[in-house]
């Protein structure tokens, strides 16, 4: 997670953004020490009231077998607290279809874990928002993927856009910090700016943009991913838009997730627009805790208790929390895949080998590389950096 607003707009030494989806202003975003424990995404359920084209969890309208019960979920939270997990992101499916969500948010908060929510927003009444706030929820990230018509088509349900905006308004009306989650594809890249303008008028001031990852149904629509030129345009437009808002005195927070070529591109952008000193400072900050967090700073536990390297990579699990505590699974580097991912710099191939930004990108998504090339340590197909930006004069032979 790269906090663009904080890197480009003067709040670069404080904030929160490297904590996955955690907007706590009191937490250092760009810290001098590497994050030691992962933020955990928990897919609380596989059920969802929508059917989104890009759903990495492959969520469905029907209930699934083997979901963690309330008692088991509390046991999981205790395991995570014992392991000093800083943030638990309640996700899904749609977490609000779980009747015990408020109870579990409160349980996590009482255990000392910061609770945040990823939701489609359509089920958030004002009463539910107040209950979640009272339970200690720190933040709700609501997914909207385009203006009304495009979003509803993408999400498989007419009225989803209006219901999500109502959910956002309900959160804001009870004082619950709320932000946008937006997955960029070629279908909705043109709507980004209008969605930001619309939701800013509603009261949202945090906007989180995800690049498409190729897990679950996201893998089925990989051909809807942006090409290199469109990626650059979308990301650069976000940089410009962030500065325009801030120049107008409107202190929005913007973040990019999922393609760590963006880390390099923000340094290049800063060098062109803000000067080399500012760019060097951003580069230095990103070195400390930047780059793809898979298997290190982000973990996922699915609705059945399977532990994944990231929430997008559901087709491989490290183990199950019904067999072993989360920390034992996460620390077990006798698993050669986990060990290799944690020293991935030694295994990257192709253009990543000589890239001058490898230290802030770390090869970006291994899942996309695997899906696109069949090579676990091959180049991420979403890398849009030019040879000049990567610091080489010509492409190496792959």
């Amino acid at each position, binding site marked *: 997670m790269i906090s663009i607003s904080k890197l480009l707009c003067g709040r670069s030494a404080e904030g929160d953004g490297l904590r996955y989806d955690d907007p706590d202003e009191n937490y250092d975003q760009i810290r001098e020490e590497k994050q030691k424990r992962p933020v955990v995404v928990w897919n609380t359920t596989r059920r969802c009231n929508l059917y989104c084209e890009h759903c990495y969890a492959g969520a469905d309208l029907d209930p*699934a077998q083997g*979901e963690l019960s309330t008692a088991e979920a509390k*046991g999981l939270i205790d*395991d995570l607290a014992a392991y000093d997990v800083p943030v638990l992101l309640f996700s899904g499916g749609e977490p609000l279809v779980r009747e015990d969500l408020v109870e579990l948010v409160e349980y996590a908060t009482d255990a000392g874990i910061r609770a945040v929510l990823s939701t489609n927003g359509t089920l958030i009444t004002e009463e539910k928002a107040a209950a979640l706030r009272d339970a200690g929820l720190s933040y709700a990230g609501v997914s909207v993927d385009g203006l009304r018509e495009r979003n509803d088509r993408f999400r498989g349900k007419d009225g989803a856009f209006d219901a999500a905006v109502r959910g956002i308004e309900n959160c804001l009306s009870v004082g619950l910090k709320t932000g946008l989650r937006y997955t960029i594809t070629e279908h909705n890249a043109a709507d980004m700016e209008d969605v930001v303008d619309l939701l800013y008028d509603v009261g949202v001031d945090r906007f989180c943009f995800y690049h498409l990852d190729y897990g679950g149904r996201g893998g089925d629509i990989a051909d809807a991913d942006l090409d290199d030129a469109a990626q650059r345009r979308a990301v650069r437009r976000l940089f410009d838009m962030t500065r325009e808002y801030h120049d107008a005195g409107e202190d929005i927070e913007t973040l990019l997730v999922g393609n760590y070529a963006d880390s390099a591109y923000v340094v290049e952008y800063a060098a062109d627009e803000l000067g080399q000193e500012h760019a060097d400072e951003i580069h230095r900050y990103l070195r400390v805790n930047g780059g793809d967090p898979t298997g290190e700073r982000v973990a996922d536990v699915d609705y059945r208790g399977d532990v994944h390297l990231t929430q997008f990579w559901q*087709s*491989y699990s490290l183990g199950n929390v*019904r067999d*072993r505590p989360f920390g034992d699974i996460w620390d077990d580097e006798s698993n050669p895949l986990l060990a290799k991912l944690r020293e991935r710099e030694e295994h990257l191939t192709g253009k990543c080998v000589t890239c001058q930004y490898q230290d802030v990108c770390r090869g970006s998504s291994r899942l996309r590389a695997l899906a696109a090339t069949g090579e676990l340590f091959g180049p991420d197909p979403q890398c849009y950096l030019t040879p000049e930006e990567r610091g080489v004069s010509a492409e190496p032979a792959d």
Partner: protein
Amino acid sequence: MDRDDDPRRKARIDGSRQWEVFYREQSADPMRHVGGVTAPSLDIAVEQARTLFGDDSESLWLCPADEIVRLGGNNLRAPERTPVDATGATDAADPEVSTE
């Protein structure tokens, strides 16, 4: 728990199946569980496992997760937390019981 009720043995609803993967790098090593892959068929599961572990492995075994009988494991059922009153004192008679 009755073995047939073990949620770790339940099939996924999307038609895919989970396969536990076991790996050995050298013939003198023990087979080691290295997680599981989810795939719509055995062929695809084998392909996934080979892609993730094949380069270094002397042996790879795959077993359907729903065929494994698991005894023991991590008891996730959390004990009830003891309520804390306004002074921070607990109702617990046993001072060893932590409220956190």
